């Protein structure tokens, strides 16, 4: 394959040419209640050619028929030539690299039968159903992938990788008198079959939580000191800050650039934020990004000050900064764009108990159901919460929705515990029609001085 791609790159008429080819074997099993919804295996094959010439735009051609490769290289060149630019696109320099980067498959899922995978997720689904009582329905999903990946460009980079991925998720629905509550379990790793074993306890807890939520009161809306658990804090930093640190948001936009000027204070000195695509075994981990740039640990906020951002080669060149290995494509169907990998809030000091001991009345928001950011406004839903009363975790509450303004809320982060952990949850990130991209987040417990918590509004 590598020879075929290198030959294609050599014959290309463009100044810069890159070719990505992927072959993905995937299998999915899903249960709804006791019923098997699907158990299926699929194969997805294709490539993407991206070319650039001096004074011209990007030409991109993606395809599922590998036989069309030479024609698609021409096609990409024609598209590129059709775009005349007065201000040329430049790419930041990177050293060419040749690598066989075969990530540890951790038990190759391709050697495991669909029946075995079905038995595994059926057992986890059974853990949820076994809770019984108010648990009226469950959803349990298993998904795995192994992607064989080739990347070759005209600067001499040639990569061959094997990328594994495994995700498990469970939803337990509890129902009583017309009220429905749910509990979620989610696991997502850039690993294989072995790491999917012995995960039953989390599924059982999700179901138990759904049942407990039926009895939990809705949180009373208002402004509180709020403590986020590591999962919620991680999702918050990804959604509310991470997207603004993607350089394609600012590089062509003078006003946004001003808003995201390096050196600007974004939080108190306790706040440190970064993105690390090179961390081992996490969902957003890869040795190289989809432009062949090595991934790295990039500091974004240091001691409360904005010090960095995430780049592709194009945004880095344009802003006079260094590429960070954050150009990613969800599949061969798309060109790479600036994306996060494993985004984190850096560790602080002390324990969770230290964090809450002087809170008279507050909210402890746990485990994220989801979140959305519209530029500087955000809304996040916690899976569940607890009231904090007189320095102690008190009763469980439901419908904990955090909403607010990003800048104000970041500035309200006053204390960060020393209990950092990476989330190992599934799901993914969406941007510009490319979703779900495997990413994860990490954080310790984080205390926000004041934040608006809306349960039921009004």
């Amino acid at each position, binding site marked *: 394959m590598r020879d075929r791609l290198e030959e294609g790159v050599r014959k290309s008429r463009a100044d810069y040419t890159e070719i990505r080819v992927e072959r993905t074997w995937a299998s999915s099993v899903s249960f709804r209640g006791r019923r098997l919804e699907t158990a299926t295996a699929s194969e997805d094959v294709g490539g993407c050619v991206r070319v650039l010439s001096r004074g011209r735009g990007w030409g991109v051609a993606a395809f599922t028929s590998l036989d069309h490769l030479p024609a698609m290289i021409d096609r990409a060149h024609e598209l590129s030539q059709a775009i005349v630019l007065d201000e040329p696109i430049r790419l930041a320099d990177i050293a060419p690299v040749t690598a066989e980067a075969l990530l540890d498959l951790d038990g190759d899922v391709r050697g495991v039968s669909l029946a075995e995978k079905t038995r595994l997720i059926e057992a986890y689904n059974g853990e949820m159903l076994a809770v019984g009582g108010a648990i009226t*329905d469950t959803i349990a999903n298993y998904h795995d992938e192994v992607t064989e990946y080739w990347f070759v460009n005209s600067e001499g980079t040639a990569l061959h990788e094997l990328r594994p991925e495994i995700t498990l998720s469970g939803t337990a629905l509890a129902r009583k008198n017309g009220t429905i509550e749910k509990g979620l379990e989610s696991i997502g790793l850039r690993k294989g079959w072995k790491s999917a074993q012995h995960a039953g306890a989390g599924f059982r807890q999700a179901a138990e939580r759904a049942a407990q939520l039926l009895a939990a009161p809705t949180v009373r809306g208002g402004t509180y000191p709020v403590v986020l658990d590591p999962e919620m804090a991680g999702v918050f930093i990804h959604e509310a800050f991470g997207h603004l640190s993607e350089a394609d948001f600012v590089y*062509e936009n003078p006003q946004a650039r*001003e808003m995201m000027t390096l050196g600007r204070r974004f939080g108190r000195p306790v706040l440190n934020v970064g993105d690390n695509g090179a961390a081992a075994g996490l969902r957003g981990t890869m040795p190289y990004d989809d432009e062949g740039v090595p991934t790295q640990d990039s500091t974004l906020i240091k001691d409360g000050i904005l010090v960095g951002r995430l780049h592709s080669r194009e945004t880095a060149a344009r802003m006079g900064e260094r590429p960070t290995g954050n150009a990613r494509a969800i599949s061969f*169907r798309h060109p790479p764009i600036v994306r996060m990998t494993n985004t984190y809030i850096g560790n602080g000091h002390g324990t969770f108990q230290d964090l809450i001991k002087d809170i008279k009345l507050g909210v402890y928001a746990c485990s994220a159901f*989801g979140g959305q950011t519209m530029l*500087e406004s955000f*809304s996040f839903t916690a899976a569940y919460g607890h009231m904090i009363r007189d320095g102690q975790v008190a009763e469980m509450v439901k419908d904990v929705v955090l909403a607010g303004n990003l800048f104000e809320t970041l500035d309200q982060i006053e204390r960060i515990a020393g209990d950092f952990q990476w989330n190992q949850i599934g799901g993914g990130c969406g941007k510009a029609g490319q979703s779900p991209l495997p990413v994860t987040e990490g954080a310790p417990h984080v205390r926000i001085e004041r934040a608006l918590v809306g349960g039921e509004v009004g």
Partner: protein
Amino acid sequence: MIPAALEALKKSADAGDACWQRSERTTIAFESGRLKSAAVVEESGLNVRVVKGGKVGVAGTTAADRPPAEVITRALASAELGEPLALEFPSSRVYPPVSTHSARAAGASTAALADLGRGLVERLLRPDAQINVTVEREVEETSVGNTAGAGGSYLATGVSVSADVTRVAENDVLMVYDYYVGTDLPQPAALDAIVESITRRLELALTVTSSPGGSLPVVFSPMGLSAILLPLEEALSGKTLVQGISPLQGRLGEPVFGAELSLVDDPTLADRPGSYPFDDEGVAAARLPLIERGVPRGFVHDLETAARLGKGHRSTGHGHRGVFGKPRLGYSNLIVGPEPRGPSRVTLGGGLLDGIAEGLLIDDLIGVGQGNIIGGAFSHPVALAYRIEKGEVTGRVKDAAVAGNVYDLLKRIGGWGNDGRWVGARWSSSLRLEGVSVAGR
């Protein structure tokens, strides 16, 4: 591709069907007003479903370099694990004529698509904002066949032109967008509508004002209506019915909503990208009334939900398929409220603001699709909303949230606007609802 797949299928399975899709999508993207990239995606893939020993299995592939027998073997492995399901494959090849293809759109050159985008950029250009415009054109061929004899093939085109304008001023980020979707390239009037809609909403948003609070009349624009319609779309889905969680179960024929609410799904509309002569399971397309004057009349089904519910239930032709996974149930074109009639006006509020002393106009909400949708309750911060005072828009409201339950709110509909339009595959005008809970801060 389909005959070969069916041939192989008959040899190893009791019954089955296959769907083959081939598409070519061209995308021209203007980033911050500049054309910087042009992309084309050529894709084809085969999705196969088999029935063996009464059990159903499915598999998909884009690997054109492998024989079809391979994907069928995988589908059979899938069927071994499956539970028995009496799928009833359609046998009729009689389909309604539906116009889904525009030769003009299919033949448009990359340069013509780029000109279309450039024209829009030039008209939206303003010194205080960034403009992104994307023009996309897709040509798709869909072929479906099954062992019971139904099947066919058709060509479709889809064109979308979207524009967003982002204005950053200190810590205030304002984004206003709109888009056109059709089978043909947009007529000049459709582009005028995008320009007018974005400009007007942006101008009115430049003034930021505080939010009113309380139980108020709220006007949802056609784009802002998603949060209200999502619970209905879930409740009217055969899938929800199979799960036994639809609030509309057993309530067909009852006046559940105000008489002003009607909802129709129509895959046979000419020249809409959501249209098709038959669905991806080979079932003929037909117009399907879902709610008539406040009374639920039916649910959408595909072959699986119809089979699971058993006697008396048939697919309504709403099976959608991708290359991977099993068919999923979905809507085609949803027509909400009064039927489309004549060209309507681009007005903010659709003429519904008169007589509102204090209220809100919602154009976009944050977090739609999160939370407990099936129960009908919603609670969302606003993304783009305007304050209404004495029948006039007086500025943009930033920190506000709206909440309510659509099953209560849709009992007292305050009226539909005169600004009916397509938002993707949904037609509606603005909707005024009374007594929506509005929280300002």
